């Protein structure tokens, strides 16, 4: 409403430095923070993984104690999934999706920032457990009652509360993207013209929306059992430990797809760009994505074949699980046929994308094998499963993340990652990955259960474990090369040029660095791959869909940071049983909510006079 223009200050306050970053509601900055925090946790969890592999390089080593080992595996899994892979994807989504759909902002910038800070404080809380009496030690799956009455440290308290807080944040992120994508697409950007990464974000967000609330409840039940003496998982008082398994996997299986669908999306952007061809079978790809997500909710009990659910349940879930292979196969073939007949270039981004295909395929194949319930009675909880999900999550999600990183780095950080170092990173990590995880298939079948702090001599498990550990060292070297690459890239002055990869989608139709308002004028979308369509029509930029006008922007706010801090403080109240601190923390949170409700926030406007020079300069916006 025009009347609001007068109510708000015309000149936005110029903030700088740390204050700017902790109050930002700009999706691009939120995205960068997600990405950086996620990357930090990725390195931390990677370090934990290396310690695990050092312990297992020879039989019967005692480099870390059994208790510490269990803490390491728990923190490695939990951190990688909740604090590394998901936030990095959320970071990429935040940075890229609004640009891809032609939006100036996300639907809920405030809530977006809140989600970010909840994740950061949740992650911080979880990791502080290392210094405050020991990390959680019941595995990332936290099966009760090992996680309730039999836990060796107070770490599970940190697990329950830290992940609860981070989970709230993720849920907010999910709702934000759903609404953004439905309501804020540019003129002409119909659903069936939307880039696959945006589609993947949309479907992933729907998965988050329905998968995280069950986990929220699960964490509450664990928390009540641990803190307040309830009996959900206390067999003697009528509790049932299987309920936790169900709740966890009702969340946990969709979570796997939350981790892989965005990677599918990235691949569907990177492969067409570097094949110089449109995505083969776009509508089949969209349909397959949605179908995978839908089926993802129907198969959770395949993690519980040995729980004793009986042959009927096991058969149903086995067959249901197999069906997921069909849409996944469709995706693999569509990528192959996207490259078919193209002009494939192999910068590092595409190396990762192409390497994804066979690596993920192996993970998918072992996935089908695992769905065969009578065979899973052996695979379950062995290194075969460890190998399987690392093929899916490293060979799939992480390779996808790396492809996306090298691809979108100029978009997000304005500079090009070094290609030579990139290729070193690729080859060391790729070879290391297969060395680490391929032998683990055999170790599992040869009788090595997962989550063992050591293995005994003379069971013919020595060779596989040794190779596996060597592979993990190679992956470490690859990661170090990546860090060096990032530091060197950010240290240099040279800014990336406009549209460095011959891009196809709207995210490449914007100047580098991205202006705060993304698009001075919203673009008119004329087809799938809108920028490519314009290029084929002889334009190097988008046709505007509207005249130049004032742009409405949201005000930044410190509240998201403070609200997350309140939860952080409340958690310590619960953990150390100081009820007053817990109550004050939660009250603080609700007080901030009240402030948010009571104080009108109409945002500010960037005047068109400020924009005009940008457009006249022949900027590509």
């Amino acid at each position, binding site marked *: 409403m025009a009347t609001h223009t007068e109510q708000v200050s015309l000149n936005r306050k110029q903030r700088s430095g740390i204050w700017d970053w902790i109050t930002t509601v700009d999706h691009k900055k939120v995205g960068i923070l997600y990405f950086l925090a996620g990357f930090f946790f990725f390195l931390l969890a990677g370090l934990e993984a290396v310690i695990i592999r050092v312990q297992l390089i020879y039989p019967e080593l005692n480099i870390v*104690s*059994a*208790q510490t080992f*269990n803490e390491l595996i728990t923190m490695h899994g939990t951190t990688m999934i909740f604090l590394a892979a998901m936030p990095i994807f959320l970071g990429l989504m935040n940075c890229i999706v609004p640009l891809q759909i032609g939006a100036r902002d996300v639907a809920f910038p405030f809530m977006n920032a809140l989600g970010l800070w909840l994740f950061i404080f949740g992650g911080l809380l979880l990791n502080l457990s290392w210094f405050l009496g020991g990390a959680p030690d*019941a595995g990332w799956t936290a099966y009760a*009652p*090992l996680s309730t009455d*039999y836990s060796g440290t107070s770490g599970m308290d940190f697990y329950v509360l830290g992940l609860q807080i981070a989970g709230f944040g993720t849920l907010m992120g999910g709702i934000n993207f759903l609404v953004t994508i439905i309501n804020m697409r540019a003129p002409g950007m119909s659903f069936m013209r939307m880039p696959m990464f945006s589609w993947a974000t949309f479907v992933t967000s729907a998965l988050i929306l329905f998968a995280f609330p069950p986990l929220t409840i699960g964490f509450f039940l664990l928390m009540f059992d641990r803190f307040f003496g309830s009996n959900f998982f206390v067999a*003697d008082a009528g509790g*049932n*430990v*299987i309920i936790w398994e169900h709740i966890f996997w009702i969340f946990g299986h969709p979570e796997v797809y939350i981790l892989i669908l965005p990677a599918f999306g990235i691949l569907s952007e990177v492969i067409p760009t570097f*094949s110089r*061809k*449109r995505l083969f*079978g*776009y509508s089949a790809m969209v349909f397959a994505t949605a179908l995978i997500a839908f089926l993802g909710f129907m198969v959770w009990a395949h993690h519980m074949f*040995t729980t*004793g659910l*009986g*042959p009927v349940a096991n*058969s149903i879930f*086995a067959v249901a699980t*197999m*069906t997921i*292979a*069909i849409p996944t*196969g*469709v995706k*693999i*073939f569509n990528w*192959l*046929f996207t*490259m078919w007949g*193209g*002009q*494939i*270039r192999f910068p590092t981004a595409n190396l990762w994308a192409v390497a994804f*295909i*066979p690596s993920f*395929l*192996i993970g998918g*194949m072992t996935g*089908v094998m695992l769905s*065969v319930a*009578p*065979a*899973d*009675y*052996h695979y*379950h*909880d062995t290194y075969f499963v460890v190998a399987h999900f690392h093929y899916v999550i490293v060979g799939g999600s992480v390779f996808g993340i790396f492809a996306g990183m090298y691809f979108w780095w100029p978009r997000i950080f304005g500079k090009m990652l070094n290609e030579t170092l990139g290729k070193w990173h690729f080859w060391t990590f790729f070879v290391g990955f297969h060395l680490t995880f391929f032998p683990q298939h055999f170790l599992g079948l040869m*009788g090595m*259960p*997962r989550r063992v*702090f050591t*293995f005994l001599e*003379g069971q*013919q498990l020595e060779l596989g474990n040794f190779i596996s550990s060597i592979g993990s060292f190679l992956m470490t070297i690859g990661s170090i090369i990546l860090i060096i690459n990032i530091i060197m890239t950010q240290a240099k002055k040279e800014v990336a040029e406009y549209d460095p990869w011959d891009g196809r989608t709207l995210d490449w139709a914007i100047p580098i660095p991205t202006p705060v308002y993304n698009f001075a004028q919203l673009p008119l979308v004329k087809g799938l791959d809108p920028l490519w369509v314009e290029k*084929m029509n002889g334009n190097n930029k988008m046709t505007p869909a509207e005249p130049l006008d004032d742009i409405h922007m949201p005000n930044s706010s410190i509240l998201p940071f403070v609200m997350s801090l309140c939860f952080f403080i409340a958690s310590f109240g619960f953990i150390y049983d100081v009820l007053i601190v817990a109550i004050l923390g939660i009250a603080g949170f609700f007080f901030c909510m009240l402030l948010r409700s009571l104080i009108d926030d109409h945002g500010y406007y960037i005047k068109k006079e400020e924009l005009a020079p940008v457009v006249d300069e022949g900027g590509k916006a």
Partner: protein
Amino acid sequence: MLLAGCGEENLSALRPKGTASKISFDMMMLSIYIMLGVFFVVAVIFTYVILKYRKRRGDEDIIPEQVEGNTTLEVIWTAIPILLLLILAIPTVLATFTLAAEEPQEGDDTLKIQVTAYQYWWDFNYPDLEFNTAQDLYIPVGEKIYVELTSKDVIHSFWVPALAGKMDTNPGLTNAMWIEAKEPGVYKGKCAELCGPSHALMDFRVIALEKDEFDAWVNHMKTAESAPQTEAAQAGEEIFTESCISCHAVGSEGGNIGPDLTVFGDRETLAGFLEMTDENIADWIKDPQALKPANHMPAFKDQLNDDEINALVAYLKELKAN
């Protein structure tokens, strides 16, 4: 074929020695063959595409044809996997039902065993024969044995890879499975569900005996009584009655907090994973935590002197079925 024969003889799931593990193994092989076929097809297309369609110098001006898709192809790569999965799904369902355990009827002479898992040891009860063992499970060869499983603390999982797939032991609930060994031998068993620090060391043994040997063993078990022969062992018995019996049973007497020690002298291993030597037994009594972290047995190095411990070792080693 490459896989068969991988791993240690009596541990590997790839060298099935039991009826159930053979069924599982056949299902593994079926799925592996199908999957290798899929991998081969994808690998061929992948390699061809990567080599054939690399960008070459001079390509810059040629824009590849922007193919939208191909319905026929989409149908093909949807339909063929469906067929393959049907081939896999039907035997999967059949085998799932074959492997399910049915409770034996009244009057059925199926051997029944109740497995109870504890942090970090296994109790095996033979309800119809009315005796207990721990850590070593004796079964007759060539018979389907009905196994009931539960736990007294956290969730564990009972796995004897060479004989059968695993089954969880859930506190407060009872699961069932069956096992059948096709040839005599000593098979390694493991806990397959994270259950605490010593999860890795929660091993056990399944000893499959020919039917007549098994019957003889049962007879010995029923008549087993502790009658220490040597002087040292007699001294050991006294110490045992004083210090150990509240947790450990021998014969019909004693607590059930720790493993039943009635036939301790017959055990294949000490604590499931250590070699059964005098030295190891003594070390265990002195400080169990050093060997198997976080187990529930207190250390006796301050309560008992070396002589007492040696006497105890002598006594324990004499506890045998025959």
